[in-house]
């Protein structure tokens, strides 16, 4: 049976070239970077080199990067760390309703437990946040804006550099150094350049597991001069902002992975966009009552998110799984909370549309044959599940 992995937004396989540079640090070069001997120095040098390499690609200085355990930790450190360290300046935050939960739940925690006020921007029906929306939401006491670069569920690409511009102008007019701008760019690492100057961002999150690098490692870019309060305590590592013995092999692997994906941006995008479009158009053409979630063109080259009316996502996911196609769903049934996707609900869609959503995310290994196999397999499975469903979703939701 074929095995077609279309869940790259969840995680990517490790690039063999990345594994190669990691292996020595999992074997002979096992030293603790804080140790004052040759093995320790070896590990410290490796981290320094990785830091410089990532900084160069981001257009940042090496001392502006913090290594963390994940995208989630970087997001938490950016939001909680910045808000707590700067709450005397103001207690208003701006974010969007379609952020990753690592941002959304951190912000909600600050709102519920620590006396912050939050403005949640609603995306339009296609999943876009506009710079004007951000401009209107800015207040005297706004200290932080966090908007993701590209959405993990529906792939929508936000106008980050324009939003950054709006915030910069606001700061200039007021003659002050806040509010600062954070973006979670985890899903974007393989698809567009991430120069922090050009994006006008002050804090930026990336992680290893979405770029053919290792899991368990993330980076937070923190512009010089920005104060954070650490989440962890107990050591001088990462300037005391992220104590704990460094995941040396992971850091080395992440640097290599970032070089590789950022060096191949254009080629990979040009290869994937036609495959993505073939899948979208194929589904729309062959299956009635479907809806593409997210903007048609302002979306990641690898993201396809479709709601299949009248059926429930988990059931379809499992039927596809049995056919060797690996996807994911915004249906409540696969989430711990039993709530369907907050992102699709935020597009103004009713619960039944969110329950029927399925996400396919393409990657390095995806071929034209894979797409053809999905297009051949999917229609009869959808038809079968529809035939046993009593639901007939109103056509105004998929026209």
């Amino acid at each position, binding site marked *: 049976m074929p095995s077609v992995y279309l*869940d790259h*937004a*969840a*995680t990517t396989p490790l690039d063999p070239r990345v594994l190669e540079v990691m292996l020595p640090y999992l074997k002979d070069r096992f030293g603790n970077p804080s140790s004052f001997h040759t093995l320790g120095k070896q590990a410290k040098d490796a981290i320094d080199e990785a830091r410089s390499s990532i900084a160069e690609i981001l257009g940042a200085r090496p001392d502006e990067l913090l290594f963390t355990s994940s995208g*989630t930790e970087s997001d938490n450190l950016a939001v909680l760390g910045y808000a707590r360290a700067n709450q005397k300046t103001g207690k208003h935050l701006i974010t969007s309703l379609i952020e*990753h*939960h*690592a941002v959304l739940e951190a912000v909600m925690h600050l709102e519920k437990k620590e006396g912050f006020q939050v403005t949640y921007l609603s995306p339009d029906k296609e999943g876009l946040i506009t710079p004007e929306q951000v401009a209107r939401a800015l207040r005297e006491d706004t200290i932080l804006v966090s908007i993701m670069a590209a959405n*993990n*569920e529906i792939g929508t690409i936000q106008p980050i550099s324009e939003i950054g511009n709006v915030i910069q102008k606001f700061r200039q007019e007021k003659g002050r150094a806040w509010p600062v701008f954070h973006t979670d760019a985890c899903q974007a690492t393989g698809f567009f350049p991430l120069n922090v100057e050009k994006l006008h961002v002050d804090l930026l999150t990336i992680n290893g597991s979405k770029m053919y690098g290792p899991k368990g490692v993330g980076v937070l870019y923190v512009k010089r001069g920005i104060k954070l309060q650490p989440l962890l305590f107990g050591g001088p590592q990462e300037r005391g902002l992220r104590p704990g013995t460094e995941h040396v092999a992971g850091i080395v692997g992440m640097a290599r992975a970032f070089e590789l994906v950022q060096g191949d941006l254009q080629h990979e995008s040009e290869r994937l966009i036609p495959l993505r479009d073939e899948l979208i158009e194929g589904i729309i053409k062959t299956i009635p009552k479907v809806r593409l979630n997210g903007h048609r063109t302002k979306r990641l080259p690898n993201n396809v998110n479709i709601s299949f009316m*009248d*059926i*429930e996502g*988990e*059931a379809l*996911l*499992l*039927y596809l*799984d*049995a056919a060797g196609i*690996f*996807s*994911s*769903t*915004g*249906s*409540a*049934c*696969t*989430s*711990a*909370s*039993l*709530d*369907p*996707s*907050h992102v699709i609900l935020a597009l103004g869609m*009713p*619960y*039944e549309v969110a*329950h029927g959503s399925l*996400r396919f995310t393409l990657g390095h290994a995806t071929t034209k044959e894979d797409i053809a196999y999905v297009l051949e397999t999917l229609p009869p499975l959808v038809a079968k599940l529809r*035939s*046993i*469903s*009593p*639901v007939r*979703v109103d056509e105004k939701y998929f026209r």
Partner: protein
Amino acid sequence: MADVSSRDKTQSWFYTDIVKDHFFHPRNFMHEQADETQYNAIGKVGSPACGDELRVWMKVDPTTERITDFHWRTFGCGSAIASTSMASVMVTENGGMTLEQARQLKPQDIMERLGGLPQRKFHCSVLCDKALRDAINDYYRRSGQTDKILVEAFRIIDQVSKVTDHDIEEAVLDGAHTIELVQQKTKVGIGNPSCLPAVEELIRFYKEKYFG
């Protein structure tokens, strides 16, 4: 939900082989071309907003009052489909259950025949017993035996999900002490938020009753 939840073998397939069999090969589902008039009772529970909706069509032999035919359609996840399919087998096998027997069918009985379900799936996806009781009442209504119509022994709190006060009591006993946790277990109010104040009141009541 951190990310869109990913396909994860260990999680998706804590479904047993029997569940998988009924999910991939559902028994007795109602074909689209089927003739609804040959059934003498119908039942319904849930709504797509809650993530599950179930309709059943039942044929009862008027002399024996046994269920001779039972078909269904389900909108829902793997365990919702499998548990409905299994229930349809259980009520019609061995000459069919009598209506009185069928009335006693519990979600636990269906789950047992399926060889178990993930804990998290149990409360929300096993709905067929409710649809079945709805259909039994419908049969008595249509056959003029209105004295046999049983209003649920328990009070229905949410007309959409048909969650009863007893369901909420069980959820609280299971450790769900907030409205969010009770919703995770029962889906009460998800398609019908107007019932939530009543739910909150009940949670308080049962918490005090059992936990002081």
